[in-house]
């Protein structure tokens, strides 16, 4: 599904990703771990098409298509979803109208008719319950005045409604208490399916107790320096990143 080869990315001339290779097949869950500043969030930004990131070398193929040539919304239409580390507020635009516009934009791309207001409302309410958000949040401005945990649940709500093919969760676990972490994990686990790939970007191993990854990669200095199974995460938890990054350097 996703094939990243020799990816080099710079921000304002500074190299952040430096020859990253990664291949993910449908149905897999990959965890990307690494110390702060290793380039984890840059990877998420480049996959979703954020401005200001320049791919200087290498490629990203998504279902055989060059992902880097696409605008952010075109990637979204093709099923790429990013759960933001810091979700932004949009005052005055209600969550409900935002979600519906988004879902309908994706449906339109698939050649499906727009949702009916009533059906969508039912679905949105049910999904709210699933992620532990009061349905009042649907009437409030997007992330407007939400707490950190509520913002993350709101990201999950969007992910469940949009049913992405490739979901990238950028430190969705940071700043969450144990209950919220469980809710996020349950949400992600319900999305696991044979057609879908999930990338979990995280600094800590604890999320991986709830979402068991197929592969774990350690990112450092802009490239993957070690890959392994879920046991790699436990090893990192025990030893920290030092032994790996030093070995790589």
């Amino acid at each position: 599904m996703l094939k990243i080869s020799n990816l080099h990315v710079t921000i304002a001339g500074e190299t952040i990703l430096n020859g990253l290779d990664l291949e993910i097949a449908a149905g897999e869950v990959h965890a990307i771990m690494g110390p702060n500043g290793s380039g984890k969030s840059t990877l998420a930004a480049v996959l979703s098409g954020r401005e200001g990131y320049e791919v200087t070398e290498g490629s990203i193929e998504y279902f055989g298509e060059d992902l880097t040539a696409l605008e952010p919304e075109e990637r979204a239409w093709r099923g790429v979803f990013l759960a933001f580390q810091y979700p932004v507020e949009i005052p005055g635009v209600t969550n409900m109208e935002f979600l519906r516009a988004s879902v309908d934009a994706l449906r339109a791309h698939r050649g499906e008719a727009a949702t009916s207001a009533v059906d969508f409302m039912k679905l949105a309410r049910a999904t709210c319950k699933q992620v532990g958000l009061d349905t009042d949040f649907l009437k409030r401005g997007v992330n407007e005045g939400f707490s950190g945990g509520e913002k993350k649940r709101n990201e999950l709500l969007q992910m469940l409604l949009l049913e992405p093919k490739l979901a990238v969760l950028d430190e969705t676990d940071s700043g969450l208490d144990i209950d919220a972490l469980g809710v996020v994990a349950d949400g992600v686990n319900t999305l696991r399916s044979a057609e879908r790939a999930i990338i979990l970007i995280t600094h800590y191993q604890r999320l991986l107790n709830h979402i068991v990854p197929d592969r774990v990669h350690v990112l450092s200095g802009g490239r993957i320096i070690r890959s392994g199974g879920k046991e790699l995460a436990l090893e990192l938890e025990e030893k920290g990143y030092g032994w790996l990054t030093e070995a790589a350097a």
Partner: protein
Amino acid sequence: MSETANQKRDVDGDTAIDRHLEREYEAGWVTDIESDTLPPGLDEDVVRFISAKKNEPEWMTEWRLEAYRHWLTMDHPKWAHVHYPKIDFNSISYFSAPRSQEDRPKSLDEVDPELLRTYEKLGIPLHEQEMLAGVAVDAVFDSVSVATTFRSKLAESGVIFCSISEALQDYPELVRKYMGSIVPYRDNYFAALNSAVFSDGSFVYIPEGVRCPMELSTYFRINAENTGQFERTLIIAEEGSHVSYLEGCTAPQRDENQLHAAVVELVAHKNAKIKYSTVQNWYPGDSEGRGGIYNFVTKRGLCAGERSHISWTQVETGSAITWKYPSVILRGDDSVGEFYSVALARGRQQADTGTKMIHLGKNTRSTIISKGISAVRAENSYRGLVRISPSADGARNFTQCDSLLIGDRCGAHTFPYIESRNPTATVEHEATTSKVSDDQLFLCRQRGLDPEKAVSMIVNGFCKDVFRELPMEFAVEAGKLLEISLEGAVG
């Protein structure tokens, strides 16, 4: 460092802006219709001609002449934050009427079909059976009212809704009593000009205790070339009555600037409520600032009686220059004045708009919510006055004034005047400015919305507090108008 990224965005922005500017003004066509138009120029004879053409009583002619003579002594105002070449008032024609209107039609069946088609094209069908239920329309084409619908139905409840020309014939005493009482011709330069040469407009009278059974609305359309439009609207709400009035405006696309200098006067007696909503979409001119309407309007309401209520809601997206301050004089104790405004300026548009709330009565309250959006190279100013007089014990005002900038070559300005002379009154004013942030735009795009849809959604969210105040049909129209106006404004 980050400057490269910014420059890149600018370049992208430009292409999108260019794309946007190629958009055509949707109401920009001209109706091919025979008109009786006065040659350009203004003198006492022109004033007399207009008055005679309308068969006006002598006092009206005299009042016009006084206004004209006073206008001659006045200077063109310079204080607004707008720039335009000096207007040559002698190059304007002060009267233009569709020829078939010579003998005013008695019913819609007699209206020139070309005119009816004009209004249909604008989305305002004048045939009553085709109308949205519950909206009566007065259609003003260039200088004259061409049709007023639902008159008989309104008459059943005693509501008078007709053109001001007809009102001068049929209800001269009412007109004489109120015209110029709220906006005297001495008020300002354009009010004086309007008083001298006004050609038509709408007249509304709601008798005591009557809740007007439907929304009233006027659609203004400037068609003829080199023509000024000077309409005058007068709405009187007697004790305990209610009325909601809507106003819409469009004009063809022309290279020359056209002048629109209207006067609107509202009077709300004890316990009466007037809600006046405007969606203004005059032709704004092209991307270089050629052409477009100069919209210099004086709108003022008097809360004459206790607990009277006047509410102005406006969505201003058109005109090359807008100069407009719908105001409320809060004379009756416990009266309420409101002003809700969305002003969007793009291209080379210049808007200087706001309100005045003059608190005279005790416990009077006013609310001002202004949302200004500037895009491309436009200049958008809020100018407002809140005056608390010594007599206004316990008066309260709340003002919220927000500006949204789209692009780094436009301007957004706020000029609030607060004058308080009563220690028991409270005035609160807040102003903020923001932009559509890259993060907001990116979130929307990541969720599958194209940039235009994303911007329009964010801007609509920004304006929500005002749209909420519009009557339903207008709210939808306003949202759409904003969306159209914003297309491509962001890259």
